[in-house]
């Protein structure tokens, strides 16, 4: 069953009136589905905020909850139950999609922490969509990483070279020419940058462990490190994607 989150407000079950924790998806007493919870993605799975996650267990729990919550189980239920099943399942799916992916999970946790640090949650959500919007100060740090990522300082020279080669390759392709030497060099560069991405992943994992085990004081620097690592990773994987695209299959 789901873990009880301490700060949740008890509410009465709509079906049996027994009081239960607001962040449960089912009434613990009569097992009826409950209106969507206000909990975060971790609480959907009854998990503490942790970055190291047991993925097979997460999948198993996802399947178990899906069997109970999915709209297919409520095709002939009351309209309310149908609506709740839809909302609860959407939450479950969103939560699973976020938590099973190491990068999304890290970003999500950082976002939650950002909220705790006093940054309003909406300021940290997703990409910007505001119509004629003014940039909100706090937002810039986490948001729009794609646009704001800068070349990692230690890689300036290599990235410059790589971009030159990419451009050369594009030109050659346009002219219908093949340059085996250039191709070879791009393959080597790709290998190197893939290696760098893997290195970032290893460092991220190390920071996870620090964050998971640490107290507030230890977590603060870990969070900063993870933000920087995510930035770096995004930049590197975009480069790898460009090279892969140009090299074809």
């Amino acid at each position, binding site marked *: 069953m789901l873990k009880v989150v301490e700060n949740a407000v008890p509410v009465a079950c709509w079906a049996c009136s027994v009081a239960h924790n607001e962040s449960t998806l089912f009434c613990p007493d009569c097992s009826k589905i409950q209106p969507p919870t206000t909990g975060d993605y971790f609480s959907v799975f009854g998990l503490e905020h942790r970055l190291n996650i047991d993925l097979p267990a997460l999948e198993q729990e996802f399947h178990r909850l899906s069997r109970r919550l999915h709209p297919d*189980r409520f095709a002939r239920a009351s309209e309310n139950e149908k609506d709740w099943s839809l909302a609860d*399942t959407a939450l479950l799916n969103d939560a699973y999609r976020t938590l099973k992916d190491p990068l999304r999970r890290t970003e999500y946790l950082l976002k939650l922490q950002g909220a705790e640090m006093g940054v309003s949650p909406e300021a940290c959500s997703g*990409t910007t969509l505001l119509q004629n919007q*003014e940039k*909100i100060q706090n937002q810039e740090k986490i948001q729009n990483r794609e646009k704001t990522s800068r070349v990692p300082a230690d890689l300036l020279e290599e990235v410059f070279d790589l971009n030159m080669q990419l451009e050369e390759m594009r030109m050659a392709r346009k002219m219908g020419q093949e340059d085996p030497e250039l191709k070879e060099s791009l393959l080597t560069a790709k290998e190197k940058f893939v290696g760098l991405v893997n290195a970032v992943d290893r460092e991220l994992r190390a920071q996870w462990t620090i964050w998971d085990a640490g107290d507030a004081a230890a977590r603060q620097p870990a969070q900063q490190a993870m933000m920087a690592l995510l930035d770096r990773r995004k930049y590197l994987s975009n480069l790898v994607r460009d090279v892969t695209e140009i090299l074809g299959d």
Partner: protein
Amino acid sequence: MAEGHVVGIDLGTTNSLVAYMEGDRPVVIPGVDGSNLVPSVVALDPVALDPTTAKPGRPTVTVGNSARKALIETPERVIYSVKRLMGRDLEEVRTELKFFPFRLAGDIEAGEVPRIQLGELRFTPPEISAYILRQLKRNAERFFGSPVTQAVITVPAYFNDAQRQATKDAGRMAGLDVLRLVNEPTAAALAYGLDRAKEGTIAVYDFGGGTFDISILKLCDGIFEVQSTNGDTHLGGDDIDNLLLTIALDEIYAEHGVDLRAHPGAVQGLRKAAIDAKIKLSTEQAAHFDIELPNGDRYQREIPRAVFEMLMEPVLKRTAAPCKQAMADAGVTPEQIDEVVLVGGSTRIPAVRALVDDLFRLGARGKKPHTELNPDEVVALGAAVQAGILAGASKTTDDMLLLDVTPLSLGIEQLGGTVARIIQRNSTIPASATEHFTTGVDGQTNVAIHVLQGERELAADCRSLARFDLKGIPPMAAGLPRIEVRFLIDADGILHVSAREQRSGKAAEIEVKPTYGLTDEQVENMILDSFDHAEEDFSRRLLIEARNEADTILAAVARAPQNPAWNELSAEEQAAIAVARDRLVLIMQGSDLNAISHAMVALDKATRRFAELMMDAAVSSAIRGKTMSEAGKEIDETVSAPHDFAPAEFK
């Protein structure tokens, strides 16, 4: 709450089927002629003058085999492959119609749902589909002897929001409560996964009449979890037919100076010949065109298989890229795919099988694709399984659960015309995203939002789903209002939007204007027959329909002795037909619907060999093992088909 049967419907481009769970296995419900397939063809019968008022009477609509016959006689009153027009806007329909003999109604404005001119009437694509659905509904009702009001309908996995909504609208017009839209490849996986407790990764390659889908699923303990899906809603057997058709038309024009394009009926005749040739080329090394032209010339041409395969290579190749993308999105290599399932009539083509073998390295791994279930029926069977899951009525389906994904990313247009993705493609549905909007000008009370579907970077290249205004925002300084908009894709893959202003706590009024589609009111007005639910009416109607059908069968049987094939039957066979005929004549006087149905099926069975003989006489041995009714429609028009699908009243 209604607890009747929930049926599963495959609403196909070429053929449609209805199936249900008979205990723990899915079964296709045949039409009264014993045929499982209802051609997705709708014809408007010629209007007779009403003798009492001397005004034109109500036109009637025919669906299925008899409508198909009308294709050659009155092509301007017939529509087929309407699925290709579902949920498409005016421009798309215009492009599509280059290959079809039907016309758009003249007075359509941009943004309106296009209507097709059929004789003197106009229909939207969902209305045409509704007629097909109603025929299937009636077939099921006849079969059960009770009303059917709930259904699961399948759609191509790669259908977008508008196409899905159009399909749901069609269901509603046909008097069906559509409990779920299921993706066709996923349905096929359900049908295959039923009897074997499979685990592992499977790919479903679904190449039908008008659409192509690829889905990759993970099966685990009764849970069918779609990992990724891809496809092309504009790619199918039709495209292969068109290749052959175009060549024939061009050659006829070049060699004989006859422009058949000006004769819709002749084009349909030629299309039929092209389809026959295509089918023949799946089993033989060559096929022939031999067609008499209006000027008395004959157009004769041999098409060797090698030439055919060269012709369709570009079409086949277009299925490869979606397969590779789907594998990449699922994060699997071809070697990690444990099983491949083939769905759709076009997978009977040897070149298609060769491509699949290559794409998934099957032969190299000593594997073969699954083709055990009839590729024409497997989607309907899967729809029935899903219907069983929803009805919760069967032990077999109790542990099964389908987790499908949205095929296309959902995004919002940003400043500069780019798209911000808010729900990525291949997200498990239901899926949601919450976004926050604010104002840019002091006192602004409206914010316009444009929702799109697709993978391209620019809004102009994606499919526009809806535009809406967040209205009634309390006037505040620019940037201060904080409007939360929630986007939810439901289990049918259809988008819902809701909004609220957080600072003032006021719910922002929101009116979602679909860029394309019918309004609720329009759908309401198009509902085919509102009296469908009336129980009394219902059984009376069934009886009348059954008697009409019996009459048609009997008339055909009465003509049978004039056919030379009749003399090839043994005396016993002739006697058996006579017995079945007399029995039907007797029973149809009564009002026992079931008995009439059984007697009709018995007569159809008794004439099966006759049908075969008739076919042997008329065409090559390619089409064997069919009932008389199917044979009738395959052979030329002078051989009378024993009976048609019951004409449906048009209200």
